[in-house]
């Protein structure tokens, strides 16, 4: 769809006509300019650096430069015991720390082959889904900022604050929880937690609708996102996309359904894919819509969990936690659906040590970001910002 021919010395001036780039001028000798977007730039969501080759406002090439937030996560894991890795996983995707812990815990549990109390599973799913909502709120809010709408961001953060309060009440921390441990939980949820959770759900439902109307009923927002950065489903799969990004391209792929773990098979929820009415399937708006609609599904999951959850009588969240974690020699790859996609952990044990020999994290953001070069070709700078925002990267997870 977007092509940029080069004629002789100069490049070609292009303009946008509906969705196509149309060549309007030829043989105009212009120079290309290297524009370093980031690592300190308001809309690269952290310390991503994009080296853009620009021709006027049109980007011929954008190459992501990574590594500004590299903290040797994988090497650190090789030097600490299995339970001590959990706080490090918090710091991968710091906007959805519960989900990262969850993914790591089920990976080690698979390696250890231990049985988890049912109530633990329910609490895990509840906190993970809560964190998914919080993470999507940040994604939607910052996406608004990327497009110049500041107010939805603060509405998002107002509601996210309540979720963080709930999670703080349960775990003692606001962002980096260290709550889901291998084989159990740090603590049981507080006595009134479920009641407050119900209150939150009744409070949040209308707020989510209001948030939707602020963005997706705004003509300018639609104009800025519809048909921008289209990723066809096959290319998305080839790039290894996952999560809302892949679903935005119309692929019904959710690990909670397709490779179920924990108690997700018992729960009823919909895998959200764009219907193509409001958006062009695969564009920025589809990805935004998937996130916005997924929050409702998460609320439904939480409601079901509250209803089905076993009581806390005689419940010890640490009962199944092994005294000393020393798995048998072997390796495991386990993956979970994070708010940003598939977070997989590959863990290798030599059977003797209490430390993993190798612990590799398959980061969703990193893989999603790899398509940047394809997505950015021929786009305008404002569209590039819209595309980066729709990928919803967390640099903590990209660089690890």
């Amino acid at each position, binding site marked *: 769809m977007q092509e940029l021919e080069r004629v002789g010395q100069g490049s070609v001036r292009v*303009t*946008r006509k509906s969705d196509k780039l149309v060549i309007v001028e030829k043989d105009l000798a212009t120079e290309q*300019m290297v*524009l370093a977007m980031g690592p300190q*730039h*308001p*809309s690269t969501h952290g310390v991503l650096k994009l080296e853009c080759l620009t021709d006027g*406002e049109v980007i011929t090439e954008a190459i992501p430069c990574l590594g500004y937030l590299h903290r040797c996560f994988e090497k650190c894991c090789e030097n600490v015991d299995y339970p001590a890795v959990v706080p490090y996983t918090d710091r991968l995707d710091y906007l959805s720390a519960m989900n990262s812990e969850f993914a790591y815990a089920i990976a080690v549990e698979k390696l250890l082959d231990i049985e988890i109390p049912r109530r633990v599973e329910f609490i895990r799913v509840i906190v993970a889904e809560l964190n998914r909502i919080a993470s999507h709120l940040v994604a939607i809010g910052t996406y*608004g*900022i*990327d*497009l*110049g*709408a*500041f*107010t939805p961001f*603060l*509405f998002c953060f*107002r509601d996210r604050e309540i979720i963080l309060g709930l999670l703080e009440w349960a775990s003692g921390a606001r962002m980096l929880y260290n709550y889901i441990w291998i084989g159990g939980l740090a603590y049981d949820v507080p006595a009134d937690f479920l009641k407050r959770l119900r209150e939150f759900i009744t409070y949040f439902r209308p707020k989510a609708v209001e948030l939707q109307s602020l963005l997706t009923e*705004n003509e*300018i*927002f639609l*104009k*800025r996102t519809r048909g921008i950065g289209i990723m066809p489903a096959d290319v998305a799969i080839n790039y290894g996309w996952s999560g809302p990004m892949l679903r935005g391209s119309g692929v019904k792929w959710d690990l909670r359904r397709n490779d179920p773990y924990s108690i997700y098979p018992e729960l009823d929820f919909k895998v959200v894919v764009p219907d193509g009415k409001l958006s062009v399937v695969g564009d920025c708006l589809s990805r935004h819509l998937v996130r916005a609609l997924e929050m409702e599904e998460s609320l439904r999951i939480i409601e079901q969990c509250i209803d089905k959850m076993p009581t806390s009588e005689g419940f010890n969240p640490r009962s199944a936690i092994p005294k000393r974690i020393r798995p048998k020699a072997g390796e495991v790859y386990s993956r979970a659906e994070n708010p940003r996609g598939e977070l997989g952990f590959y863990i290798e044990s030599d059977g003797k040590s209490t430390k993993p020999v190798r612990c590799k994290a398959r980061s969703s953001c990193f893989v999603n970001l790899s398509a940047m070069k394809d997505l950015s070709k021929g786009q*305008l*700078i*404002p*569209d590039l*910002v819209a595309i980066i925002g729709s990928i919803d990267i967390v640099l903590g997870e990209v660089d690890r």
Partner: protein
Amino acid sequence: MSTTPLSQFSIPLLMGNNLNGWSEALVGFNLLGLPLGLVILAAIPLVFIALYSLTYGVYGERKISAFMQDRLGPMEVGKWGLLQTIADILKLLQKEDIVPTSADKFLFVIGPGILFVGSFLAYAVLPFSPAFIGASLNVGLFFAIGIVAIEVVGILAAGWGSNNKWSLYGAVRSVAQIVSYEIPAAIALLCGAMMAGTLDMQKINILQSGSYGFAHFFLFHSPIAWIPFLIYFIASLAEVNRAPFDIPEAESELVAGYFTEYSGMKFAVIFLAEYGSMFMVSAIISVVFLGGWNSPLPNLGSLALNTWTNGPIWGVLWMISKGFFFIFVQMWLRWTLPRLRVDQLMYLCWKVLTPFAFISFVLTAIWEIYVP
């Protein structure tokens, strides 16, 4: 040079009964052969810009955005954070005045100056009251339309002189935007000028005064007058780089656009210029379409509200509150709407606003000729 319609003003005030009485008195005021009155005349809008941007502009913007976004805004410095802006200015004053090594120093320094002068010059023809106008030009409106273009030079100087790619992008976008939007803006104002039959800002105001208050305003002058009104309002948003047309300083794309490299007092001057232009366009729209210093209240029988609320002092109040109302709308839009893309902005200007401006121009002309 007093004209008859103003004789109705009943409040006798120091030379206030005559049109431009205050300003003419000031022009004649000399001290030891020095034209001190002229200096005071020029200083009044300057003090006004400074006071308003300190009290209403920045503080108001922060508070309004806070209320729209479920937060409190500045609360710490002074009661309800009223002294926050003063504290900010004091901070900016103390900051080191940095000129980047690779910048073109002359352009970098002169940019904010031109920018401020551009917005300040238009205040010369703003009629703040029946008795006060900086310079009573017979081509006042034309001057106001033209002088806005000076700002483009300042923005270009600032953006080019910064020697920063983001600044350059911001400057180039800004120039394209302001130059384009001047066309619909000017045509829309011409509709107002046609309804008035004059370009003199004071005369435009006088023609809108009458005992029915708001009914005399040009907005209600003809059934199509709201089209140029809306067109000018939208175009004025673009001319002063306010959202949803704040593309030259789009913070999520261009960091801060043409003033990325500025800090300290130079930054404050750019800000002052921005708030100055915000009031300037708001004042122009209220003069041309909403009666400027005329009271919107009608005379209701023996309740002569219009007569009571007109006069030199009331005029200042109406003029400033009408201006502030439009500033409020500007802020309201800013905190509600996302930003347009560059090409969408140009599309809106050339393919929507300009044709409609021409249509309303023709319709207004027909109305003025054939409808008495």
